[in-house]
């Protein structure tokens, strides 16, 4: 049943956005793809509610968001740990753990603290939110003035109202099996599929690249992650601007890698050493500035199998 009520945004927190799997088919017009930063966590959130993988959800970055249910809703929280709790109309509080479906009754609040592990949490609702899509997606890409609640690329604001489908059927609580819940604090070594201009980097530069422990820089966002650490040096020559695949690792003249993420520009002229394996990217976006990462070469065919398996799992509900 369609309803005008749903979830009321009492506090949008540090920043929260409507996202789905991204906007495709418009790259040749220059539109960024956008989409959830951590498709694994977002995939689980929809899975827990038996939603199809493409349903819209809220990506809460860094935390502090607060919502109120305007009708009974079935929800799931995944991704970063933000110590969520339910606030009863009486003011009484009840902790709500991640990684399981639950019911938020009409009039109850759902409050998130600051992220203590990971960066981005996902709040999904049974059936997804009722958002008008632009070019097949509601993904918010601020830089492109597209997506989100009003279609113009705004982040969620206090006082926004997200319409959802009222859920009257009984919820059967589903949980993510413990062994599939990632520990965002564990050390991360990213698999690299060597591609693009990889052969133009000297073996010394490559050896350095795989040896250095990099730190995630503060100038990181949904477009890309800047790494700091020892420079491997750049290439002597620029390249002709070309399409940038998700997870591309650019090495500009300063020799410090930039990993390009969902909101990246469509074209770029910096040399690239390869791409981060898709199944490792979701762990990367959960790291915050100051955390360390490393790289290691990986085999494309193995990564394709791993990614395909994941796609099949999360695409089982239509």
């Amino acid at each position, binding site marked *: 049943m369609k309803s005008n009520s749903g979830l009321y945004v009492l506090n949008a927190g540090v920043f929260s956005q409507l996202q789905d799997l991204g906007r495709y088919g418009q790259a040749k017009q220059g539109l960024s793809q956008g989409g959830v930063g951590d498709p694994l966590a977002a995939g689980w959130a929809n899975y827990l509610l038996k939603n199809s993988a493409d349903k819209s959800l809220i990506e809460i970055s860094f935390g502090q968001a607060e919502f109120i249910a305007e009708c009974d809703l079935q929800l799931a929280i995944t991704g970063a740990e933000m110590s969520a709790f339910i606030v009863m109309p009486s003011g009484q509080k009840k902790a709500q753990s991640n990684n399981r479906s639950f019911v938020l009754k009409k009039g109850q609040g759902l409050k998130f603290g600051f992220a203590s592990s990971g960066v981005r949490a996902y709040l999904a609702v049974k059936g997804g939110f009722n958002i008008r899509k632009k070019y097949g997606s509601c993904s918010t890409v601020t830089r492109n003035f597209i997506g989100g609640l009003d279609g113009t690329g705004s982040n969620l604001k206090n006082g926004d109202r997200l319409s959802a489908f009222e859920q009257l059927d009984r919820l059967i609580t589903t949980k993510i099996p413990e062994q599939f819940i990632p520990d965002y604090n564990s050390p991360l070594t990213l698999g690299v599929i060597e591609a693009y201009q990889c052969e133009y980097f000297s073996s010394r530069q490559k050896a350095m690249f795989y040896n250095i422990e990099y730190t995630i820089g503060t100038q990181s966002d949904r477009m890309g992650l800047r790494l700091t650490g020892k420079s491997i040096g750049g290439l002597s020559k620029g390249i002709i601007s070309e399409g940038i695949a998700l997870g591309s690792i650019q090495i500009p003249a300063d020799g410090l890698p930039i990993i390009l993420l969902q909101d990246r520009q469509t*074209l770029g002229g910096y040399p690239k050493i390869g791409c981060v394996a898709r199944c490792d990217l979701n762990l990367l976006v959960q790291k915050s500035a100051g955390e360390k990462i490393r790289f290691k070469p990986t085999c494309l065919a193995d990564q394709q199998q791993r990614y395909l398996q994941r796609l099949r799992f999360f695409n089982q509900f239509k």
Partner: protein
Amino acid sequence: MKILALNEDCFLIQVSDTIDLALTDKIAFLVKQIEMQLGDALVDITPSYSTILVHYNLLKIAPLVVENLLETAVLSTSLNSVFKGQNKVIELPVYYNVSVGWDLPALSEQTGLSIEQIIQLHSDTKYRVCAVGFAPGFAFLAQVPAAINIARHASPRAVVPAGSVAIADAQTAVYPADSPGGWQIIGNCPVKLFDLNNDPITPFAIGDSVKFRSILLDEFLRLGGQIIDEK
């Protein structure tokens, strides 16, 4: 020609490793071929000066099948077989004036040409759309006559106003929206080139031609143009 696997679901076709205007016809043609052959197994396609990024759906088609298909498409497309009549010519009005073309005086000084000569050279040339990207509706146009080639600003401006017509080396472009940018601004085009409510959202496709028409202030203002002072 090379086809590179970039990651789990993307290939990059390197049609050439140099910029050659004749390539844009071939690339535009190939894009249409690939769109037709991959159908709904194609997720996204990003053509540029000399490359095409092909993003496919791993759930719908196997990587090897895609690679074969791309190889066949490229090999069967010779420059001669490309039908050239399919691309359009877009005419864009430009108000070339120091009030909106902030870098005209510097360009005049650097090239030794008068502002009138610069305008003449820029608006007499027919450009090709070699790529669309960087920002929505930003078309990379070539080839700017050598006499008015000028390098980008060493440090980009924080805001280049929407509509700014600018030069960077042998390329020219119209900034579709306010954005940071380092290209040298010589005028302003009052026509909106990026509208999310239109389909397609921009008039440009790779392979199209663009011709600029010099207009006077009253037409510029009538078309909705605005004079914005440099901050």
